[in-house]
């Protein structure tokens, strides 16, 4: 009992699998790119922050400014008190050092920071002109004007409060900036942590997706293999079934012929009246019927036998070099009685010089007989059937059987090579036959590597052409 084949459903379609993989890779690449862009720009900004002048220096500068103011005043007072080792040059140098601080309040990084704070700016606006004005006072003092020295000391003491405020203000600004950069750093840290988490998630997601895809691919592969095995099994079973059917038909046809031959033999004896006449004339008619039906049945069985032999691949060619003219002659001999009985004229149009043909003589005769008997069968009284042969340009040989019979429509023509079908079923019933003639003929010519062509028009006759390939045709120059 052959197993019924049911096609499997693949759990995952391969294309869906590939699509999901592509989408995943796109998302992954996109995320990685976005992540690296964010991180790179963040690091770049951070780098720029780092490379700029630090705010600690600004605080230092502020404190130094105040310091140098104090040192100048102390040196000046020391000079005024005539302390030993303090020269006029020392006082001048201390003033110059203090003076050199002034331009830091106008130029460079520090100036920008002082200017950004309105309070610091205002303080500097007050301090700077005072210090500048000491230049002339100091020159006067060093020239001997003691009052000028006192004036400087007086003004310097007045600046103390402003310097204190300035130093504190600068420190506050510095601390504020430091706090800001610390905040930036901590925000960078959070970004880094988020990036690390995202990266981990990506890695984990990628691993999971990879595993899933791997598993899906494995499943698909296993399913495909199972399906292939199923198909292979189904093919073997189908072939075995087909062979069994053909074997059965061949065997049965053979077995059917034995009793049928007995029936035909006895019926023939009765018809000939070998042991005395059949009593009632009606019985004689019946015996005739038995013989005719029996013969028809026999030809049907023969056809089925041939067909199943071809199908079962049991038909081997026993080839020989044969004379086409003779084969046509033999075929004519077998159908002349039928044709004459029906009033159909048989003609042949064979060229004077015919090539030798490499073919199985029995099968060639059968092909010709099939075509001729079909032609005669479907040609009404008074019609004609013609056999012609010609060598083709490519060296092949064409044998043509043309009748002036009922012909076929295009629709009928299409179905005529299907086994057990006849062009016109009504007419076929009248004409008899198995409907296997043309299918068998086609199988036989195909065994010879040839082709059969059929052309027909309704009520205008049918032409069947057998074509043997050039490899089977042997031109003989001296053949007659």
């Amino acid at each position, binding site marked *: 009992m052959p197993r019924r084949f049911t096609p499997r459903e693949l759990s995952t379609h391969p294309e869906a699998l590939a699509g999901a993989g592509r989408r995943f890779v796109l998302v992954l690449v996109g995320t990685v790119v976005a992540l690296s862009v964010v991180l790179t720009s963040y690091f770049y900004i951070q780098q720029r922050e780092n*490379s700029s002048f630090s705010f600690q220096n600004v605080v230092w500068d502020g404190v130094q400014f105040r310091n140098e103011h104090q040192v100048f005043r102390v040196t000046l007072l020391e000079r005024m008190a005539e302390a030993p080792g303090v020269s006029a040059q020392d006082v001048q140098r201390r003033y*110059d*050092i203090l*003076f050199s601080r002034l*331009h830091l309040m106008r*130029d460079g990084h520090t100036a920008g920071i002082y200017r950004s704070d309105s309070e610091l700016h205002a303080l500097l606006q007050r301090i700077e002109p005072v210090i500048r004005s000491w230049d002339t006072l100091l020159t006067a003092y060093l020239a001997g004007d003691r009052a000028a020295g006192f004036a400087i000391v007086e003004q310097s003491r007045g600046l103390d409060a402003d310097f204190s405020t300035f130093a504190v203000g600068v420190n506050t600004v510095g601390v504020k900036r430091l706090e800001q950069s610390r905040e930036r750093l901590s925000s960078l840290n959070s970004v880094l942590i988020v990036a690390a988490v995202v990266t981990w998630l990506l890695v984990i997601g990628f691993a999971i997706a990879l595993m899933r895809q791997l598993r899906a691919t494995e499943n698909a592969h296993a399913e495909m293999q199972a399906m292939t095995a199923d198909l292979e099994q189904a093919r073997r079973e189908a072939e075995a079934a087909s062979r069994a059917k053909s074997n059965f038909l061949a065997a049965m046809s053979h077995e059917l012929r034995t009793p049928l031959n007995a029936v035909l033999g006895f019926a023939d004896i009765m018809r000939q009246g070998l042991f005395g006449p059949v009593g009632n004339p009606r019985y004689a008619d019946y015996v005739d019927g038995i013989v005719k039906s029996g013969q028809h049945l026999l030809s049907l069985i023969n056809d089925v036998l041939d067909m199943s032999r071809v199908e079962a691949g049991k038909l081997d060619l026993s080839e020989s070099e044969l004379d086409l003219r003779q084969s046509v002659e033999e075929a004519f001999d077998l159908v002349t009685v039928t044709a004459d009985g029906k009033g159909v004229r048989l003609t042949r149009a064979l060229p004077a010089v015919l090539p030798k043909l490499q073919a199985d003589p029995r099968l060639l005769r059968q092909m010709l007989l099939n075509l001729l008997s079909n032609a005669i069968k479907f040609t009404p009284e008074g019609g004609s059937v013609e056999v012609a042969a010609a060598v083709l340009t490519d060296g092949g040989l064409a044998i043509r059987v043309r009748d002036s019979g009922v012909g076929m429509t295009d629709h009928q023509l299409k179905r005529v090579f299907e086994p057990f079908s006849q062009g016109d079923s009504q007419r076929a019933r009248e004409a008899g036959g198995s409907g296997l003639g043309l299918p068998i003929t086609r199988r036989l010519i195909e065994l010879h590597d040839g082709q059969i062509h059929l052309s027909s028009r309704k009520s205008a006759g049918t032409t069947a052409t057998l074509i043997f390939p050039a490899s089977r045709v042997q031109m003989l120059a001296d053949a007659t």
Partner: protein
Amino acid sequence: MQGWLRMGRARPWLALLIVAILMCSIQSGHAAEPLPAPRGEVLLTVGGEIGRGNAQDASGRLEARLDRAMLEQLGLTEVNTATPWHSGTMRFEGVLLRAVLGLVEARGSNLLATAHNEYSATLPVSDAARYNVILAMKLNGETMTLRDKGPLFIIYPFDSEKALQNDMTYIRSVWQLRHIDVR
């Protein structure tokens, strides 16, 4: 054959000895020649581990006192760079620090640079070798006075290398420089 081999083994020792003797003679030869005394105002004194000088410090150690002419004799090098203390790119001219160190045959690995306002910073000698660090004397062609951070201002070529634009370098850029102690 054996004698030749023994000679071969002795040869490197001999060569080393000769080289050592030669080096000693070169060293002592230079040390014997002191720097000329400064004629003008002393801009820079270099003390500590030096091999050549023209004076002695308070504790009697060798000291090199250099005036403007002596420094300028070493040749002026130009450094164009921006600094955190100026607006825009400035043109500094001065002597290469490594030329000054060569002049006094400095032997230490660090320099303690001290300014007129007693600010001080330590510089590795390797900085002078790696970068064109100058003791700037002129700013945009004008001689720098105390009032504009002169007369000597240690200037690194900040713009030539990103690595120089950091606080460590900025604090080493001593202005109103007056003394270098080689250690």
